[in-house]
């Protein structure tokens, strides 16, 4: 058996399609390479064969390009965590250095023990000026370099404000030390301690914020942590443990009790039960036998199985879930747009306010004017915090989307998260959503008493259909070992039934409407049909050569928790509508059992989205919950489309929200998490707006004419450092959120 080793490389230096061929050729020339394909858009290469990454990198470099191995998501995360830890320590160190210099000066100021600006005192201040310059460079250098780079690019950011605030304070203080007579005696005050302590506080705030931000991505880390590092592969009849990156497609893997599943695959031998709760939120283990799919990251409970790898690396359901959650966490909903627009204008506006503050105090302020001008202008620059404003939305989205993933709910983007909190009506497709979606034949009513023939003819005709009812009828025929006959001239009549020829007889199968349209008299079967429908069974009429032959009753069992989940939806103030192509009597029987508010029955598949639009035109904000394939247009039309996945199938493109387990509880969970996240965003935005719109005028000295009070620039620095930390901490509260109601 081939050792199908797949290595993914990042390739640099390719500028044209010709480079693609050159890189591919260089890779193919490496001994052991079976296949090499280069993706120009992604600048990556996938190489299959028995070779090492180093030999491939050498070959690409020899061809004049650059290459590096792309590793799994967990290694990326380890590197990221290591880099973050280093940065965190640097920030703390810088904060401590600045605090060690600033705190004694600050205390001396408070105690009134500052040396005078003459004689030996001046010498002391010279020393402080040099020391604080060192601190500004070491602890605050990044603000100054960032401010300068931004400025050159016609951009202004938080660095600009901090650099201008502390820089002005330092320069003014140095001038006072050098030429004290420049200002009146009562204004001969220096602000070295303010500049240094502000730098200390902002570094400390950044470090704490970074810690708190790390917690916001815990959901992703938990998902990444599900991926095992090794797998037991069967090669040449031997079972060997290999690193996960070396598992190839179609390889056979051994899975023992208690082990995590390494890659996606299909069981080829044995049976077991698998705990999929970590991906789907489904608490009950799922039975697996030959032919069943296994998902990477889930845990084998009891049996030992052999399985064939069908998806590896970044293609596994787990990897795709991680990618989808990451993408969603980085998207922004409409609610954050205003904050974004303000953030873009914020810093230059604050600069203008600072100049206006300067002018106001310069022209109308009391003496010593120059000291008041400096303190107020510096405080305005320091207190303004664009970060809190910019962070308010994305940080809550990050935690909210991660929280939803914990419950097996994949939210596609921030927009969907926001809209899910505003829903007023939930439309549920019946088959596969409210019910199991696995209909079974429950009764055969043959007019001539020959149930076998009725079922045999119906199953032969349905062999050409893909409808769930057809599957039930064919399965029933197979159970009874009935032989299916060849069908000719088959055609499906959407929403009504099917027709075709079997043994030269024209067969018609479908609902009552189809029979009356085709002028088949079914009056003798109507009582039976009504009785069946009243028991939530779907009566399927069968006619041969235009003559009514009998009824096949098919029922789809209702999911055990549908009723409870619908009650939760109603308790959350939502109207619940059930939509189905089924006949009215059957639909109403199901509706009675689960307690929905309204039933829309006998809706043709193509009309489902019109029904959604109709509800929207009544002013409702509508969610459509369906299987994601048959209901795609209705899902797309709805304000929020929920696709109910089967297990770990996440390839549902038309949905805003994908539920990884079949339970309707996921819909309520998603709505409750969305409401909590939007509430959190509003708190954050409100807090950030209020902070800035109160903080800046107070810093400018608006209270001074009434109270004689001015804000100390050091207090402004502390407030600024705390403001983004508060936003991040508030978003972190979402991590403890739990959906209400019994699940």
């Amino acid at each position, binding site marked *: 058996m081939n050792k199908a080793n797949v290595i993914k490389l990042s390739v640099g230096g390719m500028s044209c399609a010709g480079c693609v061929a050159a890189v591919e050729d260089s890779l193919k020339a490496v001994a052991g390479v079976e296949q090499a394909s280069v993706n120009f858009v992604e600048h990556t290469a996938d190489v299959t064969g028995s070779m090492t990454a180093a030999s491939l990198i050498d070959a690409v470099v020899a061809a004049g390009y650059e290459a590096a191995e792309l590793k799994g998501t967990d290694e990326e995360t380890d590197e990221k965590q290591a880099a973050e830890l280093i940065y965190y320590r640097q920030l703390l160190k810088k904060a401590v250095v600045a605090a060690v210099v600033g705190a004694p000066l600050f205390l001396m100021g408070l105690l009134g023990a500052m040396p005078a600006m003459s004689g030996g005192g001046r010498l002391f201040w010279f020393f402080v000026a040099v020391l604080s310059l060192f601190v500004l460079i070491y602890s605050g250098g990044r603000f100054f370099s960032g401010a300068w*780079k931004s400025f050159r*690019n016609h951009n202004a950011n938080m660095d600009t404000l901090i650099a201008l605030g502390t820089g002005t304070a330092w320069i003014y203080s140095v001038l006072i030390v050098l030429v004290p007579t420049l200002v009146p005696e009562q204004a001969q005050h220096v602000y070295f301690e303010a500049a240094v302590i502000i730098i200390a506080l902002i570094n400390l705030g950044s470090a704490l914020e970074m810690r708190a931000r790390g917690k916001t991505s815990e959901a992703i880390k938990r998902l990444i942590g599900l991926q095992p590092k090794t797998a037991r592969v069967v090669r040449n009849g031997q079972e060997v443990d290999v690193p996960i990156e070396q598992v190839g497609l179609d390889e056979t893997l051994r899975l023992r009790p208690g082990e995590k599943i390494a890659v996606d695959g299909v069981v080829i031998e044995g049976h077991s039960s698998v705990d999929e709760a970590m991906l789907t939120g489904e608490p009950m283990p799922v039975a697996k036998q030959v032919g069943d799919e296994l998902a990477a990251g889930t845990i084998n409970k009891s049996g030992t199985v052999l399985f064939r790898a069908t998806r590896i690396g970044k293609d596994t359901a787990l990897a795709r879930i991680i990618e989808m959650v990451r993408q969603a966490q*980085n998207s922004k909903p409409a609610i954050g747009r205003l904050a974004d627009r303000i*953030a873009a204008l914020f810093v230059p506006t604050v600069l203008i306010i600072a100049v206006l503050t300067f*002018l106001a105090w310069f022209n109308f302020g009391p003496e010593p004017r120059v000291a008041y001008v400096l303190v107020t202008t510096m405080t305005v620059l320091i207190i303004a915090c664009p970060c809190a404003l910019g962070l308010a939305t994305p940080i809550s989205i990050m935690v909210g989307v991660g929280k939803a993933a914990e419950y097996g709910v994949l939210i596609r983007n921030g927009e969907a998260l926001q809209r899910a909190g505003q829903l007023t009506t939930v439309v549920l497709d019946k088959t596969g959503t409210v019910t199991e979606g696995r209909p079974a034949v429950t009764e055969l009513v043959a007019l001539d008493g020959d149930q076998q023939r009725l079922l045999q003819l119906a199953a032969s005709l349905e062999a050409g259909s893909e409808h769930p009812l057809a599957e039930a009828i064919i399965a029933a025929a197979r159970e009874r070992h009935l032989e299916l006959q060849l069908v000719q001239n088959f055609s499906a009549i959407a929403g009504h039934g099917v027709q075709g020829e079997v043994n030269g007889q024209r067969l018609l199968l479908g609902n009552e409407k189809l029979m009356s349209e085709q002028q088949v008299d079914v009056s003798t079967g109507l009582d039976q049909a009504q009785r069946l429908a009243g028991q939530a069974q779907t009566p399927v009429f069968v006619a041969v050569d235009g003559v009514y032959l009998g009824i096949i009753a098919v029922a789809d069992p209702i999911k055990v928790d549908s009723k409870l989940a619908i009650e939760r939806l109603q308790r959350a103030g939502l109207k619940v509508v059930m939509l189905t192509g089924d006949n009215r009597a059957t639909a109403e029987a199901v509706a009675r059992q689960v307690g929905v508010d309204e039933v829309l029955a006998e809706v043709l598949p193509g009309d489902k989205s019109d029904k959604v639009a109709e509800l929207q035109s009544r002013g409702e904000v509508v969610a459509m919950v369906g299987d994601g394939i048959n209901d795609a247009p209705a899902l797309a039309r709805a304000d929020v489309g929920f696709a109910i996945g089967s297990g770990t199938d996440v390839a549902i493109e038309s949905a805003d929200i994908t539920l990884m387990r079949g339970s309707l509880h996921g819909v309520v969970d998603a709505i409750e998490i969305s409401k909590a996240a939007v509430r959190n965003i509003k708190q954050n935005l409100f807090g950030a707006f209020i902070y800035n719109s109160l903080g800046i005028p107070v810093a400018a000295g608006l209270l001074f004419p009434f109270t004689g009070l001015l804000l100390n620039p050091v207090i402004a620095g502390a407030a600024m450092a705390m403001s983004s930390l508060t936003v991040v901490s508030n978003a972190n509260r979402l991590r403890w959120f739990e959906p209400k109601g019994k699940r």
Partner: protein
Amino acid sequence: MDGLINLLALVLIGFIVWWFWLARSQGVQAKQEAIDVIVDGGVYTPAIIEVSRGHTVVLNFIRRDASPCAERVIFAELGVSAELPLAGSKQVALKLDDEGEFEFTCQMGMYRGKLIVK
């Protein structure tokens, strides 16, 4: 003297308005299909990138700034975002079929860049 200081302050306001809002820096025209964007010191360099409509452009973000603000780039209008590894690079491929200006920012909107599709 006071008049001069007042005048200078007003000129400074004018300069802020002109420099940060009115004066646009020169964009880099992406003649090739791939272009490097350095993420460092609070700015994307180049911050303005002109691309032709209908082509796929690959932006290769090279992150040098360790600050967590720099860790994500978001193209909000295009629904695209990417996590940028520190001291590494990340390619973002975009097929731009519509003319217009599309901003890309960090999560907080402090790093700002613009794609101009012509």
